[in-house]
């Protein structure tokens, strides 16, 4: 069983074919995707060396897929790294605290092996103040820190960053849980510091020293993105805007001020000066009367995030209708069908729409139905990404949407009540979702909901040829559903399932598939321990984690094969089983 290549008559390659390393590295620097670099690295010994030594950006989509030291050793020249931790369903509270995903080992390895690191990004990980201190002191040219949905740190850690990172360009804190130690982290930016381009502290709960913020904004002439938190009142927003009219992206924080005409005038004047503003967001318990202050920027807006804005009614719709160049719209279902109809008519360049539920457990007073989505899909030819929460849906609507928009790449429909059928025909929504996957050949992400049988999964398995992420909840009838998915969907990477009647058989039958995927999450399905054991035994390159009631004390080894498994999380790894599992997680 020799290596096939050795027999292919590969005499020493003619000298003209052996490109010197610097040439290879230079050529690789023009490759658009990491996958191309991966392919190049697998070509031959010479290319492997040239590629891995010159890799500048590294994405580790599962922090447990590889050991930090291995990553750092393999790619010594990395300047920008991104690491992700907990599974996506952690966002829904399905992952108890202290699960893992600590950033510390990664920061330590980076501090050791990547002294020239410039960018670090963590998502759904536990980042401590010590991590932040280490980052601040280890990388002399550190420029970009991005923390998304992380926890474990406080404003004291932020102070270390602002004090220590002299070349910081971006401090981007998105939806983290940050403990407020009343540390004046903002004040730690030296007076001589002017390199900031992005400052996002919207998720911070506490106060910031406004005078310090104002001075910072004034002296950082390259500031493009500023996203404030709730603590900054409306009039202060106006004065900040006057200091930074070059802003491209603004997050206003809360504004629920009562209407005052002079404040309105201030805001209007401030926005009038912002000729470059393209992206707007904010938690607006907005008094609708203030919306006209934004009118002058509407025309230029490409992105509008009102997903925390409880403003509704004609003022909202009038406001959005003026945003003729909108590409991305995130809004609450308070916009209702007639609002979306206006969006459909006004925003012809719309590419991404997200509609969030204002009252997910409520009695459904909001008039948002399938109608809104149908209208938008009909009139927005560039629409390719949708996240839509609503109370009702029909197959007909889905089929129409599929026909209107075969260019969807991301389609996530969340009907609030589980197992809701087509409200007209009372049938399952199999036909509708099948139409979506059949029509949208480039679909990469799909979330299904409503009443669904195994048949929809047959369709998804057969047609989802580009599908990379699939989310399923309260759907399917039997093992067959899961089997269709795992045996189809050639490019599937992430599969997350909850509350579906899927059992052991399809899992074992498709064990090898799991090694081609990044991860599989199954909670509240019909799995038993025996199957998990078998899976772990068959597939040594997978880590099979099970989670049961935190209260349970007996070790998993003692349990019989037919014990039910509440949550299964399986992922491929080269690092072997992790050693930081909490009590309630067992690695089989």
């Amino acid at each position, binding site marked *: 069983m020799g290596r096939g290549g050795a027999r292919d008559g590969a005499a020493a390659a003619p000298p003209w074919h052996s490109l010197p390393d610097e040439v290879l590295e230079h050529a690789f620097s023009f490759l658009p995707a990491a996958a191309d670099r991966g392919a190049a690295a697998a070509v*031959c010994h010479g290319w492997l060396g040239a590629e891995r030594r010159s890799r500048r950006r590294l994405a580790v989509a599962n922090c447990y897929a590889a050991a930090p030291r291995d990553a750092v050793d393999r790619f010594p020249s990395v300047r920008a790294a991104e690491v992700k931790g907990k599974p996506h369903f952690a966002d829904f509270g399905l992952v108890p605290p202290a699960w893992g995903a600590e950033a510390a080992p990664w920061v330590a390895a980076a501090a050791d092996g990547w002294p020239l690191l410039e960018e670090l990004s963590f998502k759904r990980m536990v980042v401590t103040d010590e991590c932040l201190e280490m980052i601040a002191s280890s990388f002399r040219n550190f420029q970009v820190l991005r923390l998304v949905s992380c926890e474990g740190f406080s404003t004291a850690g932020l102070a270390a960053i602002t004090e220590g990172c002299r070349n910081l360009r971006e401090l981007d804190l998105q*939806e983290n849980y940050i403990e407020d130690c009343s540390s004046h982290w903002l004040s730690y930016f030296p007076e001589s510091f002017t390199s900031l381009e992005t400052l996002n502290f919207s998720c911070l709960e506490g106060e910031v020293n406004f005078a310090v913020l104002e001075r910072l904004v004034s002296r950082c002439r390259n500031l493009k993105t500023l996203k404030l938190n709730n603590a900054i009142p409306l009039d202060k927003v106006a004065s900040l805007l006057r200091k930074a009219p070059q802003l491209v992206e603004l997050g206003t924080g809360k504004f629920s001020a009562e209407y005052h005409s002079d404040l309105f005038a201030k805001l209007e004047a401030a926005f009038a000066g912002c000729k470059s503003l393209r992206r707007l967001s904010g938690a607006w318990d907005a008094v609708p009367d203030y919306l006209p202050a934004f009118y002058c920027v509407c025309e230029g807006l490409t992105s509008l995030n009102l997903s925390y804005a409880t403003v509704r009614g004609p003022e909202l719709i009038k406001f959005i209708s003026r945003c003729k160049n909108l590409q991305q719209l*995130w809004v609450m279902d308070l916009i209702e069908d007639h609002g979306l109809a206006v969006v459909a008519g006004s925003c012809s360049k719309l590419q991404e729409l997200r509609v969030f539920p204002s009252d997910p457990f409520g009695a459904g007073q909001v008039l948002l139905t399938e109608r809104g989505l149908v209208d938008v899909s009909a009139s927005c030819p560039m629409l390719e990404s949708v996240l839509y929460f609503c109370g009702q849906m029909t197959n007909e609507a889905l089929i129409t949407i599929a026909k209107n928009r075969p260019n969807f790449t991301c389609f996530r429909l969340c009907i609030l009540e589980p197992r809701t059928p087509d409200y007209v025909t009372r049938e399952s929504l199999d036909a509708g979702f099948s139409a979506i996957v059949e029509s949208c050949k480039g679909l990469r992400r799909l979330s299904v909901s409503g009443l669904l049988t195994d048949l929809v999964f047959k369709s998804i398995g057969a047609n989802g040829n580009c599908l990379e992420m699939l989310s399923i909840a309260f759907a399917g009838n039997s093992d067959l559903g899961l089997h269709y998915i795992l045996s189809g969907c050639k490019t599937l990477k992430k599969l997350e399932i909850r509350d579906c009647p899927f059992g052991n058989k399809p899992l074992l039958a498709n064990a090898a598939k799991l090694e081609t995927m990044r991860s599989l999450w199954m909670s509240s399905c019909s799995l038993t321990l025996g199957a998990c054991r078998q899976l772990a035994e068959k597939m040594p390159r997978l880590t099979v984690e099970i989670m049961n009631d935190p209260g349970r004390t007996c070790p998993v080894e003692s349990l019989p094969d037919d014990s039910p498994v509440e949550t299964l999380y399986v992922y491929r790894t080269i690092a072997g089983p992790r050693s930081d599992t909490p009590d309630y997680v067992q690695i089989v």
Partner: protein
Amino acid sequence: QLVAGHWSTRWRNTYKGVTCKFSAASSFSHIFFLALARMSESELSVIKPESLKTYIWLQCFDGSIQQVEEEVAMFCPMICREIVKNGTGSSKNHAIALPERVNPSSLSLILDYCRFHQVPGRSNKERKSFDEKFVRIDTEKLCELTSAADSLQLKPLVDLTSRALARIIEGKTPEEIRDIFHLPDDLTEEEKLEPLKNINDDPRIRLLNRLYAKKRKELQERQKLKDIQVQQEQKDERSLDELLCFINGDGGSGGGKAGKNKKKNKRRKDPKNLPKADPEHVNKEEGACAVPCNAGAVNNISRAPCPSSDVQDDNEYPFEDGDLDDGLDPAMQEELDREVEDFARRLNSVWPERMHLGQERRIESQLIGGNGSLQRFSGFNHR
């Protein structure tokens, strides 16, 4: 521009910043010629009749000598330095010795490049058009050219040719790339497995699976031949079969059909199926961030900028070598297919007897978790 005496300066070529540095104590004639190089072609032809045109001689490693107009040669920084510092190249006997990696055909191409671009009057469009055509050569020549340009330090050409090489590599599998560039398949087993190395020292199932798949392919190609070599390989195959039986467990089927995840790269090859530029898609998809468990935290839209990662997360470290197909024994595949059909038949036969509702109730009772509550799909967190 004609300055006599001792002086030093740095000239910057208007096109792509090629720098030609030289020091004082140059002879007047050199300065004169350099100044001429900066003049337009028309000016040159007026003040420099053919008989006065200066040529530079360049010698390749193989001994062959080429002669080229001085202004063309000067476009190349390395040659420029040789002329100015060492005074070589002005006659056939004192030809400038070029680095080994510059072969005659590459040199010709390079000189063509220089000849075109050293003319200052051309528009960007013209230059771009020339460049595009210029790199439309076979891969072997392109490699040689890139190598030569690099050793001559002609940066604009190095960039141009490197980009062209990248375009060839883009979207291809390692095997395809090896074919095109005539590269040896010399990765050691450790290196091949490096992203996949198993520190627990278990049998290298993946490598074996991969070899098995390769074997199977080779077998198919040689189906007509009934020689001993095939027999031998079949023997190997049998032992792999045994291994697969072990992997796949008690007679059950092994991986699903989709175990053969045949290169996502293949999909990328076909432009018709290409989704639009990956990075843009990354940005949008990355926007899905949730409110953390403590409600009340104010959140804004999560910005996109993922350094070309997540969804470009077409492959991600450490699993970038898309070659993850575990060949499935066709016999086992058949068995699996049969099982699935059987299953489906059984399912369909009892289907009319089942009421949706009844089944739901059954499922619902299964789903009630240990703590007695029915979990809802709490969508509102799902930013």
